[in-house]
Structure formats: structure tokens, C-alpha cells
């Protein structure tokens, strides 16, 4: 593990407030999800359907995207394709510059975090304000989100109250969440009114009708995509779905897995810009299809199911590692198990492969995934790929396993080694190892199972059994 990752982990583990915040939050989300999926049979059936829908999408991606583009164009939605984050940012900048836009209001979009859109626009003197309450809080504190559904989950009420006082000069009563939300509502309302462009993500895009589907509870998504004269929707290309008939299943899986809700307050279906006789809505709607490594993932038969992800966050909610180190420790847009699988594939195993070590392969993530992504198996496979592609084929660890294999391949050698270890068991207290930082080192047994079984069978033979 790199010093940076190790450092971030140790920092997180040493922060009792952070640990308490995450502990409480993850437990809360797990319980809510459990209640929403209390019917085992329904969970299993939904999950199977969800997995089948998403796998079908992965297989038919090129044709579905072409159909989506066709339908969107027919509906008056302009479609742009971006191979990577830089291209996506350029496309968005060009639209903004054409409109002489200076102010952007944003709905929640993890894809926009992925391409670091806010920073890019800021460099070009375009103000980009987050309108989702959690994202707004995080932006105020110059941080990145620590969870893909609840961005400010690492902060508690007291910390947010202090933040508002410090950064906005607005003091609210201690523990008064309603007051804090009221502050956010007031400030952001102005931004909705004044914005030149609204940018959103896309939860699902329906190919056969050219429709963008967005789920939310707050209403900021609807405001961002209705008030400004221009709406830009940024979408990872795997988010396309074939038709509206599959939407209820996916929606049921998404909202229950994410927050335990059977449905979010708003499900918004956008199929075009404002028509001539309509009175509100954006006059221009743009859809930016983002590749940024996704097409490459699809080519890999073992790893392509990574693209099934509907970004619900259930995996990280159930991950005992994430619960303890929080989202920022991963240092990537997507944290937790899905982050450990996506980030090395998007940014390279050499750069981000170390994320794969922060996993005990306990399987809670795969068990919770609503579309049956076998996350532990993907992590394992990526560990194999990491080793196969490494420039350091003779690392310390590789040598350890080489020796391990040699010993365990040869029964006689194995038994000799066992006998040697047993003979030297007195030296056990002196073996250096990270294990010993919090555990005693167990001593090898005086006689191995092999030996005892052999002796036993000798005794039995002698007794005529």
C-alpha cells in the first residue's frame, strides 16, 4: 500500500468523531434497507430481474446507445459523445461559452465528480454551485463527497452548524436541522433563479423513448433541470436502459437499496426541451454520453459486470472496511467496494491497484448488491490482473508465494518444513510481523495433524483394527 493510502487510512481510524459518524450512519442505512426488503422472496426475485436487465444492457450497449441518441435527437435533445473527462468538460464548456454563461447550478452527479467538472468550470470563471443539500455542504467546506448517495455523511449536525456559521456567517440554534435546511433552501433558491445553465446527472436513460430519468427527494434536481434556460445532463454510458417497462424494477431496487425508501419523493422523466406552447422548462437540453474507460471495461468478459452498477451505495453501506475508514480514505470519486472495482479499471491498476488491498473478501457487498454484481469476485480478479500486469514480478510478496507454492506442492518437503517449524517453535515469540501489533503469534503444534494421524493409524494397525 502506498504511504498516502496508508496515511489516509490511519488518519481515519484515529479520528473517533469520524468513526462514530460513519458507524451511526451505516447502521441507519442498513436497517432502513433491511426493512424495505423484509420480504426475502421479493428481494430475490427483484434482484434476479435487476441483474438480468443490467446484463442485457451491457450486452446490447452499442445498439441501445444508438437508439437512445436517435430518439433524443427526435425529441429535440442534443447528444454529445465524450471519450474521456477532458472531452466531456470541453463539450460542457463550449455549450456554456456559446451561451455566455457565468453561473451554473448543479444537481447531484457522481459522473461530474469523476471528471472534476466543478474545478474545470471554475478555472474558466464559471461559478458552479451544488444544489443538493449534502453536496452543497461538502462544497462549502472545500471537500469531496464521502459517499455516493449521502455526500455529507461524514459530518454531524454540530459540525454543519459550525460550518454554516463560519462560511456563511449564519448562526442557527444547536442541533436544529430544520433551521440548517431552511438556510440552504433560501440561499440556493436565488441560485436556481439566476443560473444560466443547470447541470444534472442521469439515473437511467430510456433508449426507445429518448427519456432521461432522475430520482431525488429534495426537488433541487427538478429545479436545476427546469429553471435555467439550458439543461446539460451528464451520463455514464452504462446508464441506458431499453424501455420504460424495466424502469419500475430498477427504481424499486435503487431507492430501497440506497435509502430504504420504496420510492423517492420525485421521479422525473425528461423527454425534451420546452415545446412551443409550454411555459417553463429549459429551451435547450443536452445529453453528454461519457465513456471514460467504460467501453474498455465492457470488452473484458470477467469484469464487464462492473457496468451493471446502478449507483445505489448499498455495497459501501455494508462494507466493514468502509464503515471504519469512511469515503475520503479511498481518495477516489467512488469509494467502498464499487470504488475498489471501478477506480483501478478507470485509472489503471498500477496507479490505483492498492485500493484492492483494503478488503477482507467477506462478501457483505456482493450479498447486498441489488443487481447481483459479484463484487468480491471482481476484487479477486482485479488482484490477479494486478499481479499479471505488474512491472514488479519479483516483489517480496511474489517471492513469498513462490516459496509457499514450492513447499506445498511437494508433500515430503511440506512435512519436513512442518517438522522444522515445530522444532523451532520456541522461537515464535521472536518472529517479526505486523500480526503481532495486536495479536499473539500462535506457536506451531508439537506434532502436526499429519504426524498424529500417522501415529494413530500405526497404533490401530498394531491393535489389529
Amino acid at each position, binding site marked *: 500500500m502506498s504511504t498516502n493510502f496508508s496515511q489516509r487510512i490511519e488518519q481515519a481510524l484515529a479520528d473517533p468523531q469520524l468513526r462514530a459518524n460513519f458507524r451511526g450512519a451505516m447502521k441507519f442505512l442498513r436497517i432502513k434497507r433491511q426493512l424495505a426488503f423484509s420480504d426475502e422472496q421479493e428481494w430475490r426475485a427483484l434482484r434476479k430481474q435487476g441483474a438480468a436487465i443490467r446484463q442485457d444492457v451491457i450486452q446490447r450497449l452499442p445498439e441501445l446507445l444508438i437508439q437512445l441518441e436517435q430518439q433524443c435527437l427526435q425529441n429535440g435533445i442534443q447528444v454529445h459523445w465524450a471519450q474521456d473527462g477532458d472531452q466531456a468538460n470541453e463539450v460542457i464548456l463550449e455549450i456554456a461559452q456559446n451561451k455566455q454563461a457565468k453561473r451554473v447550478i448543479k444537481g447531484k452527479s457522481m459522473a461530474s465528480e469523476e471528471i472534476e467538472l466543478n474545478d474545470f468550470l471554475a478555472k474558466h470563471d464559471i461559478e458552479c454551485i451544488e444544489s443538493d443539500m449534502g453536496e452543497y455542504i461538502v462544497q462549502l467546506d472545500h471537500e469531496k463527497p464521502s459517499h455516493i448517495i449521502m455526500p455529507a455523511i461524514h459530518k454531524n449536525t454540530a459540525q454543519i452548524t459550525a460550518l454554516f456559521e463560519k462560511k456563511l456567517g449564519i448562526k442557527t440554534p444547536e442541533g436544529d436541522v430544520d433551521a440548517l435546511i431552511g438556510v440552504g433552501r433560501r440561499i440556493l433558491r436565488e441560485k436556481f433563479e439566476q443560473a444560466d445553465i443547470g447541470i444534472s446527472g442521469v439515473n437511467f436513460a430510456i433508449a426507445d423513448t429518448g427519456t432521461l430519468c432522475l430520482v431525488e427527494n429534495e426537488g433541487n434536481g427538478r429545479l436545476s433541470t427546469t429553471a435555467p434556460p439550458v439543461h446539460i445532463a451528464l451520463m455514464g454510458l452504462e446508464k441506458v436502459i431499453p424501455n420504460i417497462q424495466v424502469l419500475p424494477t430498477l427504481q424499486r431496487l435503487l431507492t430501497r437499496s440506497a435509502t430504504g425508501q420504496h420510492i423517492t419523493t420525485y421521479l422525473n422523466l425528461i423527454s425534451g426541451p420546452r415545446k412551443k406552447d409550454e411555459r417553463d422548462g429549459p429551451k435547450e437540453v443536452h445529453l453528454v454520453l461519457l465513456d471514460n474507460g467504460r467501453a474498455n471495461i465492457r470488452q473484458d468478459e470477467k469484469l464487464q459486470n462492473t457496468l451493471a452498477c446502478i449507483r445505489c451505495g448499498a455495497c459501501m453501506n455494508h462494507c466493514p472496511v468502509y464503515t471504519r475508514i469512511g469515503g475520503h480514505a479511498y481518495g477516489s470519486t467512488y469509494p467502498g467496494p464499487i470504488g475498489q472495482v471501478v477506480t483501478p479499471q478507470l485509472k489503471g491498476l498500477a496507479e490505483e491497484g492498492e485500493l484492492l488491498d483494503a478488503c477482507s473478501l467477506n462478501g457483505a457487498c456482493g450479498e447486498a448488491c441489488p443487481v447481483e454484481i459479484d463484487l468480491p469476485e471482481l476484487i479477486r480478479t482485479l488482484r490477479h490482473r494486478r499481479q499479471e500486469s505488474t512491472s514488479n514480478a519479483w516483489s517480496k510478496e511474489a517471492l513469498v508465494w513462490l516459496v509457499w*507454492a514450492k513447499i506445498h506442492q511437494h508433500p515430503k518437503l511440506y512435512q519436513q518444513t512442518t517438522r522444522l517449524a515445530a522444532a523451532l517453535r520456541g522461537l515464535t515469540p521472536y518472529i517479526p510481523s505486523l500480526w503481532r501489533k495486536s*495479536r499473539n503469534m500462535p506457536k506451531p503444534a508439537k506434532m502436526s495433524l499429519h504426524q498424529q494421524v500417522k501415529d494413530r493409524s500405526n497404533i490401530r494397525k498394531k491393535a489389529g483394527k
Partner: protein
Amino acid sequence: MPHSSKTIQKKQQVYLFGTCLIDNFYPQAGLDAIALLELAGFEVIFPQAQTCCGQPPYNSGFKAPALSIAKQTIDLFSDEGIPLVVPSASCASMIKYHYPTLFEANTNDKQLALNLSQRTFELIDFLHDKLPYSQQPKCPHLKVTLHESCSALREMNVASTWHKVLEQLDNIELFFPEDRHECCGFGGTFSVKSEPISAVMTHDKSQNLLATGAEKILSGDCGCLMNIGEHIVFEKSAFKKQANPCLHLASFLVARFGLQHEH
């Protein structure tokens, strides 16, 4: 010696895969596994050439070393009529669920692996309906807690069977810890490679298990037991110099069924 006039019943044979951890550190659990299998009427075959299932390098990303070890294993337990019983859910899972993937590049080996997979069982699950529950000797009252290892829970799906077995034992009280299904932090090499995270997880699990008031912590996986047990003993002040309370389910069952250990 004259032959008996009775026909000798041929016992059904099972292979025992002891696992390298039990072999080197907890051989008693292996002997207890054999004792239980014999109690249930099986003849246990323990090929001396067995070593390891290959899981440690496999999970760490090192396929080639894992493959060479696993090849040894599938060649060794080759009799298709003999079930393979493993006193560890995680090693059983490696053989049952991961060997077919590991050997996918070679058709013959894959066939051997698939065949072995079909007849591989975790020990307690294999025995659960074959033990003489109605003939339990009187044993002292005991409070126990069960650590359902991740492999038992999510891969082999035998955690509920472990529970069922304990429910049929006399004079014990069974407790489950807070955050019952959370990983104990062992994860094989994870315990060393991600030591700081693992340490915290292990401490939480140890605390939760002991907080049940149980006198013994039971599980079917020696890796977890080693992790939890050696941590409890290490943290003298946090756990009030508590002796290692961990015990393999096989050893516990041997004690409760009053079996003698052979010397």
C-alpha cells in the same frame, strides 16, 4: 485368528482435508473432526500427501502458485465416489467454488475440479444430521456464542446449520453477538496487509463476542478463531487477562458427545 461368522459391514468412506492451518497450529481440531466422522459411522481416509488448498496466494492475486498447489489437491482426492470433508468453511469454499474457475484454462483439470467440487462439504454441515443427539451424556451447563464466519455465511451457506446443531445440544445457552454478521477482520492476508483496519475490526468483534457473556467462542473456521483468540490474549488490559475462549465446533462437539481422544 478365526474369522467371525458375521459379515463385516463396509463403512462409507470420506476423505478428510485437514487444511494447512489445522495441520500446523490446531491439529486437535483435525483429530476431533475425525472422531466425529467415525462417530457418525464413516471410515476416514487422510491421504498423507495433502498440503494446502491454495487459497492464501489465490486471494492475494497470485494465480500461478495457487494453481500448482491446487493441482496437487485435485489429483490427490481423485476417487469420485468419496466425499471430501473439510473442517473449515473457507478452505471448503476454495475447493468447492473457486477451483472450477482456477482450472478453467485446462479442460481435464477443470473436469476433475468440477467433480471434486460436487462432493466437497464443510464438516459440520456434512455431519449435522448424522450425530446421535439423543445419546448425549450429561455435561455441565455452558454459555456459548457462535461466530458465523463469512465463508460459512455467504459462500458455503452453512452458518444456519451450525446454529441448528448447537440448538440440539443439551444444557447450553447460545448467544449471538451485536453486529452478528460483520467480518471478524481476519480475511487471510488482509490481517497483515491491511493490519490497521483488521486490528480495529478484530477488536470490535472480540468485544462483541465477549459481551454476550459466553464462556466459549465457537466457530467452524480456525482462521477466525486464531484471529479472535490471539487478539483477546494479547489485549491483556482490555480483556482483563481473559484466557483464550475460542474453540473449534468439532472440538466442542467431541467434548459434548463425551468422546475420548486417542493418543
